[in-house]
């Protein structure tokens, strides 16, 4: 309150200032006239009396200043003066201002960006009523796992005494037919009590409830997400009560969920919600009674008031003991723990928290380094201005006033930098939000900056302003105006290695590490884009669908697949059409153990290899561009009544049979004892990720190992837009209710390259930041030493030193640090690239281009940073210097 009052008083005096000044003026005039009256009475003529009175009174501006001070109302006026003066000083040195604002913008921007992510993912509570008491239940297995089986969920729900109620959900893809064409959509299968447990109110219509569930497929109801309703139903309020098809089964729309509710996963974005008891209709099969199948994504609920998490865990563990006693085969002894549901419990939450916290620390370090560098720059500037400061001190300005002025300048810089940085990070956040790294799986990251982000950015700007503004304080407090005005010299420079030098060398080394690794990553990425995957993604389109979505099952599946292949092959320009369950480098794959033909005991430990397994149509290899080395491909005659055959890759042949020639026409076994004959061998490829070592793979016939989940590979010489239109019309002609998803194979691969791309981009960003920091650091140090040693340099020049010698004297130290730091950084960078090689395919530092690039980059950086100080050192004119001092 006191502070507020004082502020109000100060503001009031500020606005009354002109009035008060006029009053003071009048009072002083009255004083002089009274004095003149007295003098006149003592015999002086009036004009002479007035002159004498004014003289006696003395410098009346000085007293006015003192009166203003006595009013104690100077704060804001001084501030305005300081800001004006600071802006003038900054405008006079645009280079310094640009470097300082740029560095701060990077530092504060990086912090604001990372903090926004931290805020969105970790700090901000979930957008549901009473998020503090909402917990997910995790099983403590070999790792923490939030998934449960449905019977376990029911037991947890009915036997616990700690939760108000427990809800469950899982995520799946289903074909939603709203009267036009069915589209693959993302659904959340939820327990009947889901909305009631979370306390969500419908935006429109109503929700389903626990009382609607009466066994499997008893609740064909559907709730739309707001965004889906907005886009696909154009906000039509009459959707309530309408019947739509989910995988061809009729479901009634009950209502629309509120805007901003995307389920309880932060990054999720479901299109609609359906009751879990209807799993069979939505997924094609049901596991409602399978206690060993943990397909329920998460179970969660609000703790009862007064129940602590520890009490709830104890309660749950007693249910775990019950499971252990009654279902030893499926469950065993289970213990539980509680976690926040928003990041899929601790399963994803823990690594995400660790990653974001590490990023935050890194960003903080960057800002700290930036402040240290700016501090040096600032000290150099203060040294340059030693004369101005000394003059002001000599003229009676207080040291406090000068420090205040310098801090105002520092804060001006940091606020400008903060504003630019915040603006940049808000732009970046916008992009990040709109960015869909995997277009197939829409994500919805709530990254909007809120008031917390702005406050943090402001605080960071203020703190960093004070931090680097504080560096020259000691220098100024020690300034002796008489000495400086007399001689112009400042304390001699020390020659020993200072902490500042060491820090700078470390910074340069870190910068070199980042530059090295980003170059390694970029080269690796460029190379991996042109490497051989074992298939040719160019000129191929993928049709992704699941025949189960439109009600096909059993023998109807392969028959429909054959019809689809035949139909697409008639499109003009299409050269071949193949079918595979999941293409190589897909996010999911099947793998299985295989055994040599001689193995009798088919235990997992006796397996010859774990191989990736695919089901394909005969034309797949031609369509995918995979080379068949020997033998034949699968054919349509390999049907379910003929002997089982497979095409394997070279690595498979090498592992199981020693060589490709041994493998041909030979047999091996699957876990279930099926003997399979090798009829062909293909080249090796990339199956699970780009950085894997050669991996064995086998390709089986879709007739012998059917799959409803399928991708058709359509190779053609037409452009993808015409092709996709043609594919759409052909498939609609076959079955208008079949939902599918179309993309080029290259687009699909983008998600496989996602990790390497992210690594490359973030290394690049960090590399640029490191380079910026090193530049300001070296610039600050050399500028400081040049301005401190101007006199010495002048004397050297006067004594006949050559340019080279002057430069050596001025910059030698900086270059030594640069060389030392870069060398250390290069070595460390090469070592670090080994780690990088596991993320970015073919990242190797043993690449002359990379080595040359790093050396060149660091040399350029040094040149850039020392250019201005070098010019300044060379332009020292001994005659001017001598005259000045």
């Amino acid at each position: 309150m006191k502070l507020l009052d004082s502020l109000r008083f100060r503001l009031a005096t500020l606005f009354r200032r002109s009035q008060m000044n006029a009053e003071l003026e009048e009072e002083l005039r009255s004083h002089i006239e009274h004095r003149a009256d007295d003098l006149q009475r003592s015999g002086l003529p009036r004009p002479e009396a007035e002159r004498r009175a004014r003289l006696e009174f003395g410098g009346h501006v000085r007293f006015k200043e003192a009166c203003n001070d006595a009013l104690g109302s100077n704060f804001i006026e001084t501030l305005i003066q300081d800001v004006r003066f600071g802006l003038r000083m900054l405008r006079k040195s645009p280079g310094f201002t640009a470097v300082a604002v740029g560095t701060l913008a990077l530092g504060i921007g990086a912090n604001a960006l990372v903090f926004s992510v931290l805020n969105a993912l970790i700090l901000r509570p979930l957008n549901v009523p009473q998020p503090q008491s909402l917990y997910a239940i995790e099983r403590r297995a070999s790792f923490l796992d939030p998934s449960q089986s449905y019977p376990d969920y029911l037991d947890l729900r009915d036997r616990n005494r700690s939760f108000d109620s427990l809800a469950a959900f899982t995520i799946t893809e289903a074909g939603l037919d709203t009267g036009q064409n069915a589209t693959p959509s993302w659904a959340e299968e939820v327990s009947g009590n889901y909305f009631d447990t979370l306390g969500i109110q419908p935006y429109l219509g109503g929700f389903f409830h626990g009382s609607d569930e009466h066994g499997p497929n008893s609740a064909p109801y559907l709730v739309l997400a707001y965004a889906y309703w907005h886009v696909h139903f154009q906000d039509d309020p009459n959707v309530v009560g309408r019947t739509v098809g989910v995988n061809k089964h009729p479901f009634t729309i009950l209502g629309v969920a509120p805007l901003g509710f995307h389920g309880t996963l932060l990054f999720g974005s479901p299109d609609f919600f359906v009751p879990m008891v209807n799993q069979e209709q939505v997924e094609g099969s049901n596991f409602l009674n399978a206690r060993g199948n943990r397909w329920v994504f998460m179970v969660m609920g609000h703790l009862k008031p007064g129940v602590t998490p520890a009490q709830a865990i104890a309660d749950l563990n007693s249910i775990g003991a019950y499971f252990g006693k009654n279902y030893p085969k499926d469950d065993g002894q289970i213990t539980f723990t509680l976690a926040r549901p928003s990041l899929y419990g601790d399963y994803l939450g823990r690594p995400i928290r660790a990653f974001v916290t590490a990023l935050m620390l890194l960003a903080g370090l960057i800002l700290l380094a930036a402040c240290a560098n700016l501090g040096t720059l600032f000290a150099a500037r203060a040294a340059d201005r030693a004369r101005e400061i000394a003059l002001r001190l000599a003229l009676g300005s207080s040291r406090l006033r000068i420090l205040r002025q310098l801090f105002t300048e520092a804060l001006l810089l940091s606020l400008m930098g903060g504003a630019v940085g915040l603006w940049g990070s808000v732009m970046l956040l916008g992009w990040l939000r709109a960015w869909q790294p995997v277009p197939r799986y829409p994500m919805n990251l709530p990254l909007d900056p809120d008031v917390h982000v702005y406050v943090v950015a402001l605080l960071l700007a203020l703190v960093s302003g004070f931090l680097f503004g504080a560096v020259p304080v000691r220098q100024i407090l020690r300034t002796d105006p008489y000495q400086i005005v007399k001689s112009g010299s400042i304390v001699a420079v020390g020659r020993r290695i200072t902490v500042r030098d060491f820090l700078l060398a470390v910074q340069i080394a870190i910068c070199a590490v980042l530059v090295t690794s980003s170059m390694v990553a970029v080269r690796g990425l460029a190379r991996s884009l042109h490497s051989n995957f074992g298939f040719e993604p160019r000129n191929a389109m993928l049709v992704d669908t699941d025949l189960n979505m439109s009600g096909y099952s059993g023998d109807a599946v392969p028959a429909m697949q054959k019809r689809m292949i035949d139909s697409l092959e008639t499109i003009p320009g299409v050269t071949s059409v193949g079918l595979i369950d999941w293409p190589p480098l897909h996010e999911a794959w099947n793998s299985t153990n295989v055994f040599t033909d001689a193995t009798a005991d088919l235990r997992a430990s006796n397996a010859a290899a774990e191989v990736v397994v695919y089901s394909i149509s005969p034309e797949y290899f031609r369509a995918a561009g995979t080379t068949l080395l020997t033998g034949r491909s699968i054919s349509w005659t390999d049907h379910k009544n003929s002997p089982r055959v497979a095409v394997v890759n070279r690595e498979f042949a090498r592992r199981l049979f020693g060589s490709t020639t041994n493998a041909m026409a030979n047999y091996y076994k699957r876990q279930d004892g099926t003997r399979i004959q090798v009829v062909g061998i293909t080249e090796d490829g990339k199956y699970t990720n780009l950085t894997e070592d050669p991996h064995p793979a086998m390709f089986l016939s879709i007739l012998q190992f059917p799959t409803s989940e399928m991708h058709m590979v359509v190779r053609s010489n037409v452009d993808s837009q015409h092709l996709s239109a043609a594919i759409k019309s052909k498939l609609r002609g076959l079955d208008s209710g079949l939902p599918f998803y179309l993309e080029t194979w290259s687009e699909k691969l983008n998600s496989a390259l996602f990790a390497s791309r992210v690594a490359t981009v973030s290394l690049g960003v960090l590399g640029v930041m490191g380079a910026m920091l090193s530049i300001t650091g070296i610039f600050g140090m050399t500028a400081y030493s040049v301005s401190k040693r101007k006199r010495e340099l002048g004397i050297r020049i006067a004594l006949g030193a050559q340019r080279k010698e002057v430069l050596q004297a001025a910059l030698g130290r900086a270059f030594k640090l640069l060389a030392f730091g870069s060398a250390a950084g290069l070595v460390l960078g090469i070592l670090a690239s080994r780690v990088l090689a596991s993320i970015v395919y073919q990242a190797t530092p043993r690449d002359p281009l990379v080595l040359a690039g790093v050396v060149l980059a660091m040399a350029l950086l040094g040149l850039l940073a020392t250019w201005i100080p070098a010019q300044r050192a060379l332009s020292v004119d001994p005659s001017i210097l001598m005259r000045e001092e």
Partner: protein
Amino acid sequence: MTDQAQLLPGTLDLLILRAVSLGPLHGYGVLLRIGQISGNALLIEQGALYPGLFRLVRQGLLKASWGTSENNRRAKFYELTAAGRKRLREETESWNRLATAIGAALAEQPEEV
């Protein structure tokens, strides 16, 4: 003029309070009154008076109002507030104690110690 004494720091406020305690005065009047009660023994810069007056008003020890002077000129008159009167009493006592002590110390003869 030459035998006028420099003011000790901090004593100007006390002198102003004392001068005004005898009745409301304008700025020039305060100066004259100090000269009169101190027997013209103290040197006060004319302008230096005003920061002092402002300070005392700000502290609530004086209050100011515009009026007409004996010379028929407009002038700002100062008078003591209750707080000012109290402060004057305290400052006077403390000054007297100090003066007595210093006077006694200086009057002390070495052999009496």
